[in-house]
């Protein structure tokens, strides 16, 4: 065998490694899946019909989130016999494939080929930033159900609405709460190193420091960090509380390492860190972790009871914020449609959406003039109830908007959170 030949596999392997590195944590596949909804063929209601495009990931790293949003939406629709406010609803699902280009093509397909009158979904904020301008120009309203970038809802009077949180919306009340109510005066922040991590950490740090407490350390780890030990062992043991923003499978690894290395500082987290999708896997390691979020499956109100009963009957597992986002989106659309007279045009739905006010499973929900949801934020604690781990509600901060208690104009003057990352502990 010649030397040149011997190095060939190495060259090929290096090329493949680079290609994989480029993919990052995308994949496992990026093909689109188009499927008609389970609610049957074309629905026609007394008032007419509307095609809803669900643009949520069905493959790739966010599939679990996207599928629960879709399931929540369709569950509400089914509970209403496939009609919302006497409009027959036809659901068309497309997979944005975690790719801004693909997602925009899919959005165009939904609008131009399927005739979608509203698009609901989006998990990845980068994808949302790409899709939103197209829908704006096409005059089709967009209701975001997960994507959290603060900047998406900063334009007044647009056609974009979001039922889920902005990166900092659910953590700003937490800063106040941890400092004043829990009396924990110094905090170490552990976050994922991307825009959501900076926004959620920044929201907490802003109100925490404005309340008179002190962030003493900030650690940011890359997404999909396989080994959390190097970060966990660095955490300042003198801090009174560790504030964690580690959604997804990183949460499982973070908590496992945290317990394994014997840290006993209390943890307060952004609510996605102790999501119900993760709790069964996290088990004991999540015991006692506190968090803030706009939803918990154990909220005690009639809307949530209806939702939880319908969900557990069909899926035999806990509801979670993503399923609730889908359910609440369907509820919001229903409320908007009840205000639309005749043909549901883009402008008609958009205008009606602005005045929507519903009792969602999470509690009262309406939109501010930027299209961002205003809702109650719950302070929760992971507890074992009837043999299952749940996020027990310990306190409620009512009607939280995306600017919290700050003056809007003042808030919009603040530097963006990606610039503030790393400055809180100084």
């Amino acid at each position, binding site marked *: 065998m010649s030397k040149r030949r011997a190095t060939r596999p190495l060259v090929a392997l290096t090329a*493949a490694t680079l290609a994989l590195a480029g993919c990052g944590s995308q994949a496992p596949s990026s093909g689109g899946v188009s499927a008609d909804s389970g609610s049957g063929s074309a629905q026609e209601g007394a008032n007419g019909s509307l095609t809803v495009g669900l643009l949520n990931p069905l493959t790739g790293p966010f599939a679990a989130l996207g599928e629960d949003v879709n399931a929540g939406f369709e569950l509400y629709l089914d509970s209403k016999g496939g009609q919302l406010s006497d409009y027959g609803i036809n659901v068309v699902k497309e997979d944005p494939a975690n790719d801004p280009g693909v997602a925009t093509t899919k959005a165009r397909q939904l609008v131009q080929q399927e005739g979608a009158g509203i698009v609901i979904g989006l998990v990845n904020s980068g994808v949302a930033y790409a899709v939103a301008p197209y829908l704006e120009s096409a005059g089709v309203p967009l209701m975001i159900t997960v994507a959290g970038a603060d900047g998406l809802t900063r334009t007044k009077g647009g056609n974009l609405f979001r039922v889920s949180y902005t990166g900092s919306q659910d953590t700003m009340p937490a800063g106040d709460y941890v400092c004043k109510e829990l009396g924990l005066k110094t905090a170490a922040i552990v976050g994922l190193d991307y825009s959501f991590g900076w926004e959620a950490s920044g929201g907490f740090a802003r109100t925490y420091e404005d309340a008179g407490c002190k962030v003493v350390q900030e650690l940011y780890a890359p997404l999909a960090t*396989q080994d959390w030990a190097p970060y966990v062992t660095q955490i300042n043991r003198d801090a009174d509380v560790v504030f964690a923003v580690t959604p997804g*499978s990183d949460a499982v690894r973070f908590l496992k390492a945290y317990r394994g*290395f014997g840290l006993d500082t209390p943890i307060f987290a952004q609510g996605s860190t102790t999501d119900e999708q993760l709790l069964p896997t996290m088990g004991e390691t999540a015991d006692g972790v506190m968090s803030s979020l706009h939803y918990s499956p154990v909220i005690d109100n009639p809307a949530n009871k209806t939702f939880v009963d319908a969900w557990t009957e069909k899926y035999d597992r806990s509801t979670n914020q993503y399923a609730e986002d889908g359910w609440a989106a369907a509820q919001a659309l229903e409320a908007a449609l009840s205000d639309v007279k005749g043909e549901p045009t883009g402008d008609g739905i958009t205008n009606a959406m602005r005045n929507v006010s519903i009792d969602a499973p999470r509690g009262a929900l309406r939109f501010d003039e930027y299209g961002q949801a205003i809702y109650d934020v719950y302070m929760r604690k992971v507890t074992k109830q009837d043999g299952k781990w749940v996020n027990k509600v310990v306190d409620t901060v009512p009607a939280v908007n995306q600017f919290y208690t700050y003056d809007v104009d003042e808030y919009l003057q603040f530097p963006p959170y990606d610039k503030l990352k790393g400055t809180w502990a100084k």
Partner: protein
Amino acid sequence: MVWLSNVLNGLAFGSLLFLVASGLTITFGLMRTINLAHGAFYLVGGYLAFDLYVRTGSYWLSLVVAVVVTAVIGMLVERLLLHRLLNQELPQIILTVGVSLMIGDLLLTQYGGSPISPPTPAGLEGSMQLFGSVIFPKFRAFLIVLALVLAALIMAFLRFSSIGAKVRSAVDDQEIARTIGIRVPLIFLLVFGAGTALAAFAGVWGGALTSLSPDTGLDVLLLALVVVVVGGLGSVPGALIAAFAVGLLDQFGKVLFPEWSLFTIYAPVALFLAFRPNGLLGKVESR
């Protein structure tokens, strides 16, 4: 004593990388077959063990069945698909990436996208105290021992067993090996099966450390490829040294320069390969 904890943890993470890389270096180094579905087989092993453990509650049964079943799947892939592409690296890459995407999506359909955690054997939960002040998880400590034992076993097998000798001869010169009656395709089938069995074994242990979801296969594969290339293709001791080195680099990189955590692995590796393209203990082929 923080440094001790850091060193131990670097070694523990390196051990996990070695578990993954051992199977890869065997198939890749010995058969010259690039198997980018290795990360997918890692997932299959972990998911099967998780599934079986939930059903049966028996750790060892879950581990053994998961490893054996994955090895059989691997051998099917080799026999039906890969063996047609002997010595054709680029088609192998396309094919195995395709297999890995298909496995990833099948797992997503079957188990959903939320992370799962394969079982931990009894007795390895919790932590231990070293020298009074350092708290270290037992599971991680055991991983280091496991990697060393596994490395010794593989090396001994290749060195001293007659199958090992046949494998080496089949790799060194296929035609001569065939003329003296060694059934080269069978040997390759067994080697590939062993490689996927090691991937599944790593999936059960590594999954218990890091948890699994259908997309973690790629994250792990990437680091394992680095280990294999740095260690030298087909060299088990090379992979062991490289795995420990990468584990320590990763650990200390994240401790000392957290902002540069990816850079601290890949920059030294790139530099190293520029000067030693064959890796640490890679065979220099001179014929």
